[in-house]
């Protein structure tokens, strides 16, 4: 019991304990164990195998690794006897912060808040708060969008009802006379939101460029300069494809580079590669040693991909449907510069350019944010309890 399971073995008691008596008792226990610990581990990193001979060897409370069978920086982040590898503890903190990035993670035994020393970057903070603002705003935007769509459906239905009851002539006199729409318009208009959403995925890439041709019709396609709206819209899917493949090529390269940096920085320390716990004790060591290599490759890959693909569904859809509005805003913003106005006189082309610039800027910002996050993860570290025990809040 005592060698493998340190005093933490009863975390159950911690849940039901707020009484002063219990706290006192706990303090006396931790004081006792500290006095044992200080003789060996006042500076956990510098502990040598000689001093730890038969007192209490360093053992990570997360992976159970010791000095003999694992590598990694030791940290003692709280006031009880638990120590762990920095990387193991960072994994645990990350898991807790998946939902709320600022969540405070506590030691499960002594309830001390783990403290991280991470560089603060103003740009990254702006990026993260903007990102979470967008995240928080999505439900409201979705609700607004649904309300609008109900309104529009009702309007259309109302027009249909008026036309049916009053007859075409009387109805058109009431409603004003819209030009009768052809089949291209009736299929094209409802397709626009669908295409906008699918343009965020790769699902219909193969026939995306054909769709504008179907809707616009051949007779409107004439090569002129500046290109007519019909031509521009037919070219946009090709531009999108070119941009996407260029982007994924670039991001792919950056990703491999970052991952290499990541491995170089943390990989050695991450895990003790050879579990040298007495191979005769159990046949499973052989398996334990053989398997991880493969799994690690796969797991690492998945983890890395999720960095570039972590937007949720609602965000994708709302973003796609807001695209016309965003392009128009960016276009009118561009219109304020006389330089742009003289080159691109009409609104339509300014809006298209604005939309494209927005997409590029957004992607770059996302890439920058991801990079900064990775960088922060690389350099952050867990603060030793000894460092901050005097600075009480």
């Amino acid at each position, binding site marked *: *019991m005592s060698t493998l399971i340190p005093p933490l073995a009863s975390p159950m008691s911690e849940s039901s304990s707020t009484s002063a008596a219990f706290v006192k008792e706990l303090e006396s226990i931790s004081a006792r164990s500290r006095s044992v610990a200080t003789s060996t581990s006042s500076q956990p990193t510098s502990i040598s195998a000689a001093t730890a001979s038969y007192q209490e060897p360093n053992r990570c409370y997360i992976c159970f690794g010791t000095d003999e069978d694992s590598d990694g920086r030791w940290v003692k982040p709280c006031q009880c006897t638990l120590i762990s590898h920095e990387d193991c503890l960072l994994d645990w903190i990350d898991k807790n912060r998946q939902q709320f990035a600022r969540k405070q993670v506590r030691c499960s035994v002594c309830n001390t808040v783990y403290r991280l020393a991470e560089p603060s970057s103003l740009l990254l903070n702006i990026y993260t708060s903007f990102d979470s603002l967008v995240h928080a705003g999505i439900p409201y935007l979705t609700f607004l969008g649904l309300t609008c769509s109900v309104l529009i459906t009702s309007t259309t239905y109302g027009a249909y009802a008026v036309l049916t009851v009053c007859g075409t002539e009387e109805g058109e006199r009431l409603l004003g006379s819209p030009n009768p729409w052809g089949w291209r318009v009736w299929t094209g208009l409802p397709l626009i939101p669908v295409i906008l959403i699918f343009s965020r995925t790769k699902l219909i890439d193969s026939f995306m460029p054909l769709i504008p041709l179907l809707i616009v019709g051949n007779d409107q396609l004439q090569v002129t300069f500046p290109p007519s709206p019909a031509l521009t819209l037919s070219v946009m899917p090709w531009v999108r494809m070119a941009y996407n493949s260029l982007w994924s090529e670039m991001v792919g390269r950056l990703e491999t580079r970052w991952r290499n940096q990541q491995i170089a920085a943390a990989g050695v320390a991450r895990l003790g590669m050879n579990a040298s716990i007495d191979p005769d004790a159990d*046949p499973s060591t052989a398996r334990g040693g053989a398997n991880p290599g493969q799994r690690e490759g796969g797991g690492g890959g998945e983890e890395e991909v999720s960095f570039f693909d972590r937007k949720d569904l609602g965000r994708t859809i709302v973003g796609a449907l807001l695209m016309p509005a965003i392009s128009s805003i960016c276009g009118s913003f561009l219109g304020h510069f006389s330089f742009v106005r003289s080159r691109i006189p009409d609104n339509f082309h300014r809006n298209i350019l604005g939309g494209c610039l927005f997409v590029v800027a957004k992607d770059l910002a996302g890439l920058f944010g991801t990079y900064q996050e990775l960088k922060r993860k690389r350099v952050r570290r867990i603060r030793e309890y000894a460092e901050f025990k005097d600075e009480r809040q």
Partner: protein
Amino acid sequence: MSTAVHRRMLKEYMAIQKNSATRPHLELLEPVQEDDLLHWQAILLGTADSAYEGGKFHLDIVIPSSYPIQPPTIHFTTKICHPNVHFKTGEICLDILKSEWTPSWNLESVCVAISSLLTNPEPSSPLNCDAANLLRCGDMAGYNSLVKMYTALFAMPDEE
């Protein structure tokens, strides 16, 4: 990650073998197969003087490859009547197996926690509403006899 999980499971295994004498309510806690440390089984003994007395309750334990960052998945394979255990699936509603999990738990302490859940049910978050309702109404006689009946039906194979 998986090196870490295997190392940890191996050490837990060795510690469990060493302490086998010190746990009265845990008849068995071992890997299902010797060479797979990610799939375990356990047998809980019903506490004496409780309605579960004399029953042997089998647990199936699956260790995720991200253990101990993620908790193990545990369910009863023996049918058991308990407010916090699903009667059909054997799913267990216990906070430390979900939101309150921390790496300082280990398989042994989790099994002890489940064992103590048997005698300390929490009827406010039930998976078995019938059992929980009996408890909430304070019908201890009804609850105990129901539990005794199911224990005799499903958890005492030898006496049939």
